[in-house]
């Protein structure tokens, strides 16, 4: 009887050791190409590789890209609507990835206002992504800094606060009570979070320059001063 109990117990333990150590579904962020038709924009992010068209444009337009010539720091910071509408001006041949120096793959998230935030549409601006969650106290405490940053840079910086797919509260209701003017989105599928290197640690902040290249990607809290410095860094002329 006792022997039977031990055999059963060991079988349970063996099963547990197998089941709990199965590999998680592959989430290679930079290699992920999802069918844009299959993804429901309202439910989450559409993650795309830079299209072939963009890649060839970047090769041809390398000479025309303002950032590559040292005298053109002004052109980037005075980004107007027409510049932003033409992504070819800000094409990059950096590798796609989540490290500093890589360019982030394009994605689309629906903001809580109902609009679509398409990353590539903001080329020409500095893009600041802040990954946060309602249950993360330091995240909530630093949201005002991002709000102030957006208020101080209405034209040349685009701030998006992305809530983690790990929700414990009604995020739209929570955000509605907040007095901030920045764009909020919910990364319901978790794709965008995986794409930037994971949201195990929150908050995580990314700063992209006008060409969509990552100049900062770190977990941890930031202050307003740090954000301003990062924006300045992002807008400084690139030395290719």
């Amino acid at each position, binding site marked *: 009887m006792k022997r039977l109990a031990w055999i059963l117990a060991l079988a349970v*333990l063996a099963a547990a*050791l197998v089941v709990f*150590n199965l590999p998680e579904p592959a989430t290679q962020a930079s290699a992920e190409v999802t069918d844009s038709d299959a993804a429901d924009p309202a439910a989450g992010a559409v993650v795309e590789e830079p299209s072939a068209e963009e890649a060839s444009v970047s090769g041809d337009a390398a000479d025309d890209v303002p950032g590559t010539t040292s005298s053109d720091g002004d052109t980037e910071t005075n980004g107007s609507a027409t510049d932003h509408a033409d992504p070819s001006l800000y094409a990059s041949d950096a590798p796609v990835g989540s490290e500093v120096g890589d360019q982030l793959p394009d994605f689309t998230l629906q903001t809580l206002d109902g609009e679509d935030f398409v990353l590539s549409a903001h080329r020409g601006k500095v893009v600041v992504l802040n990954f946060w969650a309602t249950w993360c106290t330091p995240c909530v405490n630093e949201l005002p800094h991002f709000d102030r940053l957006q208020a101080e840079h209405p034209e040349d910086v685009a701030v998006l606060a992305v809530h983690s797919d790990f929700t414990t*509260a009604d995020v739209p209701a929570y955000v509605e009570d907040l007095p901030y003017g920045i764009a909020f989105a919910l990364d319901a599928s978790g794709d965008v979070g995986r794409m930037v290197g994971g949201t195990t*640690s929150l908050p995580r902040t990314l700063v992209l320059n006008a060409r969509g290249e990552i100049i900062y990607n770190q*977990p941890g809290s930031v202050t307003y001063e740090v954000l301003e410095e990062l924006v300045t860094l992002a807008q400084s002329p690139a030395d290719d």
Partner: protein
Amino acid sequence: MAKMKEWWLAHRPTTRRLVQLYAALLQNAHLRGFVDGEIYKGKAKSVCVPGLNCYSCPAAVGACPLGSLQNAIAAQAERPAFYVVGTLLLFGLALGRVICGWLCPLGLIQELLHKVPTPKVRKNRFTRILSWLKYVILAVFVLIIPFWYSLQRYPVPAFCKYICPAGTLEGAVGLLSNEANADLFGMLGILFTRKFIILALILTACVFVYRAFCRFLCPLGAIYGLFARVALLGVRVDRLSCTGCGACVRSCPMDIMRVGDHECIHCGKCIDVCPEKAIELKAGRLTLKGPQIALTKRGENP
């Protein structure tokens, strides 16, 4: 060959030790977490394990009941903490502090530390008084502080945050030991420093004082201790056979007044000590373990 057999018979692990090892491994079956540097995030994580095992341990497959309780209280303004309280009631009624003695990984760690050959601090009136401290910690850090801040919708799992050595050892050290989490070092501050000092003090104390954390600090032991008389499983004394000699209490390493009271972790050490063979580990009416070893002298093991 005979010497080896002699050694084995003297040193073989008891059933209880085997069950402790088994339970520690079962509650931490996600061993790949140490390889990947990531905690388990599957569905099973929402189920509480019975013992004190940090949710943030890379290998943990379930949630710590104490952490879950604090967070449930911290969120009580949104929804009542029925699930966690219900789980604790279930564990308490079924097992009580049998969990402490047989299933808690932190209990196992403390017992192993106590095996380090040093002079040992014997229990006394002072340790008995100190054993009430865990109820104070339960009240203040697990119940009052999280509840107080929950009224402002600000989650403060105060025991996890300020004290818990399991969190520091399994969670913090467990995660930081993997180079994939090197960026976490930048987030360490005064909270970690204090908790690390607390961990070092507790681990050191456990070498000299048997189960120092269990006896004096563990709020989970305090909770399970509340079920001492009503739990289904436990070490019980047959009152009809008991002569009141007190051998059981003397042999007990915990700060009990009576076998099976709220300090008893049901390790069963007293079972073989009782000269009247009046003590058994029982599950309701069923005897799981009765006295087996013949006594050489009254009240002493061979």
